[in-house]
């Protein structure tokens, strides 16, 4: 009898789950955007004879199902926490260390645009060598003083939080130190950040791959020293701390480990943001008098200071720095009514938190390396810059080829 009952129960439970979830899927409204993942979600694909026969409808349906699946965050969480429970020590290539420090360990590394690897520990030495060669050549040609900082990844800086071996960190660190010429003004940040991290300072986020504003302050000091402006460094006491709690960063999104506590952004405010303006520029093709196409830069967005505080109320809180202008190509931040030296920053997003400090000394001209801007010499000339700063973190170094294009 019990067998019959259990068989009936099995059939009913299975069908209930199957039809229940299917019904929930079709009935619940679709959401167009996932804040937790920072991306738009797939909607019902376009249906036509063409899309059906070329397979794009089918592919679209697969994505649509995955993206709009009911209770998706719950399911993703179940998976993440079972991976940790099974002793894997990580989920989706994200390590969980002491004090809930998260760090991405595996990356899809870059060799060429055509070659995709699975998530890896190792990286292509040749790709990093190409970046080193490009930087060396660029610095040798530049008539201006150059400072290069390459911020390490969380897994490198916060290494003491993990049992993960330092093999890759050591190899990459060694390759950079040995390869970069003195002309690049390369400043090795790894020992400095490790020392401060190990002393319990909050220099890297636990849930995000960036450094904190305090970490950026450390780097700022080193940059100033690199430019021989040690005497101009502003003490930490010159800034007032503004705390923005509840920050869950990119690494957390990737790991999906709910039990991890959020970060707090401790923004060091110089208190004079209203003296500055951020202009975002893009390149536009126009025709000159003779009808030939020519490129001009055009301001398409402008805002006071360098922060968009609206971001502090949503998930992507790091986006507040430079208004989340991660993909903008050029940014110029002049101080109003002051005549100052101009600094060209060729950067990735790590530089966004450096802006509040550096803007105290220079008018900033920013070219986004990860946005494909590599013509540093031209930019420096165009804007009359007298110094050049290069900021590019290790993750980008191994997962993209942008820096190798700098000239």
């Amino acid at each position, binding site marked *: 009898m019990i067998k*019959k009952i259990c*068989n009936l129960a099995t059939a009913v439970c299975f069908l209930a789950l199957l039809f229940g979830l299917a019904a929930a899927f079709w009935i619940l409204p679709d959401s167009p955007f996932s804040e937790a993942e920072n991306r738009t979600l797939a909607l019902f694909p376009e249906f036509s004879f063409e899309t059906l026969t070329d397979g794009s409808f089918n592919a679209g349906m697969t994505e649509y199902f995955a993206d709009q699946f009911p209770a998706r965050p719950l399911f993703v969480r179940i998976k993440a926490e079972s991976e940790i429970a099974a002793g894997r020590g990580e989920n989706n290539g994200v390590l969980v260390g002491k004090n809930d420090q998260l760090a991405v360990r595996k990356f899809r590394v870059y060799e060429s645009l055509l070659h995709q690897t699975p998530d890896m520990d*190792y990286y292509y030495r040749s790709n990093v060598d190409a970046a080193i060669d490009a930087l060396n050549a660029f610095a040798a040609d530049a008539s201006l003083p150059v400072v290069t900082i390459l911020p390490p990844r969380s897994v490198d800086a916060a290494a003491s939080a993990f049992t993960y071996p330092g093999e890759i960190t050591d190899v990459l660190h060694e390759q950079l130190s040995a390869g970069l010429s003195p002309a690049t003004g390369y400043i090795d940040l790894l020992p400095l950040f490790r020392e401060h991290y190990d002393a319990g300072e909050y220099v890297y986020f636990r849930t995000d791959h960036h450094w904190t504003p305090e970490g950026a302050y450390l780097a700022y000091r080193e940059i100033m020293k690199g430019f021989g402006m040690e005497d101009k460094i502003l003490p930490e006491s010159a800034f007032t701390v503004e705390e923005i709690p509840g920050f869950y960063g990119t690494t957390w999104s990737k790991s999906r480990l709910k039990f991890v506590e959020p970060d707090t952004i401790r923004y060091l405010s110089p208190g004079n943001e209203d003296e500055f303006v951020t202009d975002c520029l893009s390149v536009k093709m126009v025709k000159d008098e003779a009808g030939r196409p020519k490129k001009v830069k055009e301001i398409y967005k402008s805002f006071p200071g360098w922060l968009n505080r609206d971001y502090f109320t949503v998930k992507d809180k790091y986006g507040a720095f430079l208004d989340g202008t991660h993909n903008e190509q050029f940014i110029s931040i002049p101080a109003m009514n002051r005549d100052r030296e101009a600094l060209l920053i060729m950067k990735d997003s790590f530089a966004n938190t450096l802006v509040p400090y550096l803007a105290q000394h220079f008018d900033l001209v920013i070219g986004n390396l990860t946005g494909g801007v590599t013509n540093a010499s031209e930019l420096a000339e165009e804007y009359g810059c007298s110094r050049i700063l290069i900021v590019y973190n290790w993750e980008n170094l191994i997962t993209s080829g942008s820096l190798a294009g700098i000239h």
Partner: protein
Amino acid sequence: MVFSSLLFLFAFLTVTLALYYVLPHNKWRNAVLFVVSLIFYGWGEPVYILVMLLSITEAYGFGFLIAKYRETNVRRARAWMTVSLLSNLAALLFFKYANFFLENLRLIPPLSEKIALIEGLTLPIGISFYTFQIMSYTIDLYRGQTEVQKNFVAFGTYVTLFPQLIAGPIVRYRDVDDQLTERRETVDLFASGVRRFLTGLGKKILIGDTASRIYEYAKASADFNATALGAWMVVIFYTLHIYYDFSGYSDMAIGLGRMFGFRFLENFDYPYISRSITEFWRRWHMSLGTWFKEYVYIPLGGNRAGRLKQYRNIAIVWFLTGFWHGANWNYILWGVYFGVILVIEKTFLLKRLEKLPKIVGHLYALLLIGFGWILFSYTDMAAGARCFLALFGVGVNALSSPVIGYEFLHAVPFLLIAVLGATPLPKRIWDRLAEHDWVSCGAILPDGREMPVTEDGLALSRRGKVFAVLTTVGCVFLFVFCVAYMVDSTFSPFLYFIF
């Protein structure tokens, strides 16, 4: 479409189950299965539905001619069978092997300029499986082992039946001919199908896919830093991956079949507990082995025509087995590799192995199976050779590296579970405690024995009842976990501000 996808479970399967059980009669139910199977098949490449329909129609049509002449004019029946088989094989040869032959012809210098590959030729999924199924009908019919199927829908359903369409098991026509027209769907059989399906889903998603990720990692790492440990990880995790993936898929097929009242033969029987390669091939992908034995080996004379002919037959069968797996030299080599081992075992090794302690046989078989998977998984044979040598520390940078060691150590708990799960032990213990075989009830064993769907004789003890409930609850949890992993596998945070 694959079974282990959200789209299959929550769109395709729900609709199919609803349509199927709403209709009252098997005739209509077959029509439902036929139509949805075509949709299932055409999901990736709609055009290839036509190829399949053509093959079905040929075999169906020629079937009448074979049946007509097989009593009166055997030669004619034989001729029609040959025509039918060749026309079916033609599609397989063209789509799967044409470019392989052309590529090899191009290696001959005077031809290399003159021969061009056929462009845009992609392999229709499952063509190797359904072609063999169709052939089994034609041959069984000629041999008088089955009757001609007059109902086109029933025959079409047999060939296209979505549970076994794209990855087997290869169901012989005569094993299901009765079921096509007369089968009984019951709650008990359905529940047993659900349990079997979820077992397979769990094997594929929770273990097979995880093993695959570790395998991919180790394989890619070898390009950066070749280590002996890394090479062993490639072998070990590929060995686990392919078993859990493939046998999980067969479990799902068998389970789905039961949900619709079909009872298919088993396809895997714990292959990795074998003590010889001969035993391994009796336990691995049994429906393919049976097919080759029945339709190639025995017709060629099998082992009854003298030693020499037997070896020839073994050579042919294993060349074909390898070639069936893929149009590439590494698959051929893989088949031949096993053919050679089987001959060696037959001549003397098997007898010697039996005298040695059991563990020797296990290690011997596992190692040879593992080496075989290197051949199988590397279509680039030079890379395969490097991996093989690396196992013994030849051509490596080091025996291990810190990060690869780290990856391995953190995979150990998973590895233990996966290894244990590839033996009959967990199931045996569960069945003993539960006093009932919940997963295999309703199965048809390789020797043809039918396991009863429900045993009504013995009443369960208190413990048995507890385990009955546990089994049921376990199914729910297993399903939820599988869905969680499926949802996650497409979970891809777009980290735009990484730039």
